[in-house]
């Protein structure tokens, strides 16, 4: 990989829930508990995991939509966590987000044209009102929407179209990296493919990098070059999409892969179900968080969290593969 665009190290976010004015009843939820990865220029990096594993929190913490508690986020040599004021605003232009819910992500009271023009105006990207209009028109064209969409309001569009509008809005400030938080999971399957196709085209044309957050392995396998698998706030395995899904090292990755629908009828019927339920991140199991559900659990798994180990080009955190364990 060439120089990374984005480097994340030891990122952590814990939430205190409950309580109220007094902190007595508060419970700490370790939503993101020390994760690290790099994203190269023009690369699509996937983060997968079941709901509640902290992947969305991670995406928001990178953009400081949620302030992380600890760790480093470096964008092109610049410390994102230390930025404030004008520097933060400049960074916000470069790092954008596309949301999961195409219904809640657009302000129902603003026309599409105004929604797209607003960021351009706020950041002073265009010189004149005429130029703003021209940019809005070209954004709409780029995401495959008719020019008259600018006059209309969000409720007049379908979910897929709204997601295109959300993408256009993210593009309006000319970002280099987009955090896509489950961008297609709320859409019909047929629409999913179209939106993914659009994002892939934008990736190629604009040289965009993506942090692509999803729970659907099929989508991640299609869209991402490299993938990290998250379980209860930590990355358990990370590597290229081909390696990771071709030959999963971590039992959890294997379980996820085997549970996702495979378009090969010959493999049907051999699919094991995911066993057990995800424990609460407020009270994760001791040692390796996965051990209660793991078919290969050993005594060591209960006692300490496995080290992150390099296996080939991959990273895995599992006692089966750690040099000391096994």
């Amino acid at each position, binding site marked *: 990989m060439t120089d990374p665009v984005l480097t994340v190290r030891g990122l952590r976010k814990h939430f205190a829930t409950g309580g*109220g*004015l007094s902190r007595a009843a508060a419970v700490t939820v370790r939503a993101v508990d020390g994760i690290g990865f790099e994203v190269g220029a023009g690369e699509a990096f996937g983060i997968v995991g079941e709901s509640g594993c902290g992947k969305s929190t991670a995406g*928001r913490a990178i*953009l400081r*939509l949620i302030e992380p508690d600890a760790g480093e986020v470096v964008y092109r040599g610049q410390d994102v966590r230390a930025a404030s004021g004008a520097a*933060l*605003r400049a960074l*916000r*232009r470069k*790092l*954008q*987000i596309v*949301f*999961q*819910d195409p219904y*809640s*992500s*657009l*302000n*129902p*009271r*603003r026309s599409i044209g105004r929604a797209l023009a*607003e*960021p351009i105006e*706020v*950041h002073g990207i265009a010189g004149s009102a005429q130029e703003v209009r021209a940019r809005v028109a070209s954004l709409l064209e780029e995401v495959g929407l008719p020019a008259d969409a600018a006059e209309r309001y969000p409720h007049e569009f379908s979910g897929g179209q709204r997601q295109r509008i*959300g993408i256009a*809005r993210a593009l*309006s*400030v000319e970002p280099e990296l987009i955090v896509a938080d489950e961008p297609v999971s709320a859409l019909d399957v047929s629409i999913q493919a179209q939106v993914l196709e659009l994002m892939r085209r934008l990736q190629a044309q604009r040289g965009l990098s993506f942090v692509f957050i999803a729970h659907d392995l099929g989508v991640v396998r299609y869209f991402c070059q490299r993938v990290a698998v998250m379980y209860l706030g930590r990355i358990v395995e990370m590597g290229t999409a081909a390696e990771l899904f071709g030959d999963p090292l971590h039992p959890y990755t294997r379980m996820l892969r085997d549970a996702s629908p495979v378009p090969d009828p010959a493999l049907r019927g051999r699919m094991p179900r995911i066993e057990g339920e995800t424990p609460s991140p407020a009270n994760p199991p001791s040692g390796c968080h996965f051990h209660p559900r793991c078919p290969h659990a050993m005594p060591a798994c209960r006692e300490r969290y496995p080290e992150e180990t390099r296996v080939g080009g991959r990273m895995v955190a599992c006692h089966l593969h750690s040099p000391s364990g096994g």
Partner: protein
Amino acid sequence: MTMRILARLFQVFGTNKTSWVGLALFVAICAMALLAPWIAGTDPLEQDIIAKLRPPSAEHWFGTDEFGRDVYARLVWGARISLSVSISAITLALVVGGTIGLVSGYVGGRFDMLVMQVMDILLSFPALILGLIIVALLGPSQANLIVAIALTALAPFARIARAPTLIVKERQFVEAGRALGFGHGRILFVHVLPNIVSEVLVMASLWMATAVRVEASLSFIGLGVRPPTPTWGGMIRDGFENILDAPWLCIYPGLAILALIFSLNMLGDGLRDATDPKLRGE
């Protein structure tokens, strides 16, 4: 945008007869206040010692008071005070209270809890007592009256603005705004505010009724706009001294206050039913 609001208003009213009646009555009283110079006939301040305490007649429709002033003329002019004081007070409460609720809900956390506790305490004071004390301390003048009545209505507006803010701020377009580098001010006033305005406006029509009542009550106690300016509450106060000889001095202003409050209550009731389907038919 304006057309859409109007269209929605008609849609709301179409289904609710009482709000139509309320609106018509309210508009009529507003028209009376606006047209006072043309429909009052005589000067409401002009005294006529010879024609004092005259019962209603063709010349003086609602009779004359102890200074021989025409009650009808005073009633028509008095509408101006009732309306202008209450509308100003409610506008002030709406802007200040609404902003408090908006900011408090948006900021959230302990700040929000603290602000809302203060508002709850303010809310537990009876509006009349609070208004009474404030005007007493500030001294009676139209401006102070407006401030006092606005203060009594501050807490409900803060509450009503906060509730939808809490919901709207969780919507992803607010987060998108932050990601796009918008300032908090822009997010609050450009993105959140338009989404909560309708709830706050319904509240305004309901609290207008309370504002009118408090203004009239304070005037009756003698803390209203100073005489000789005619106010409905003040007219009743003066008339009360002559209640044995000249009951009309109390009857007509009393009915006027009743009509105004009733129209606002009907209007607010209908609006609330229409905007909150849960409360329909209440």
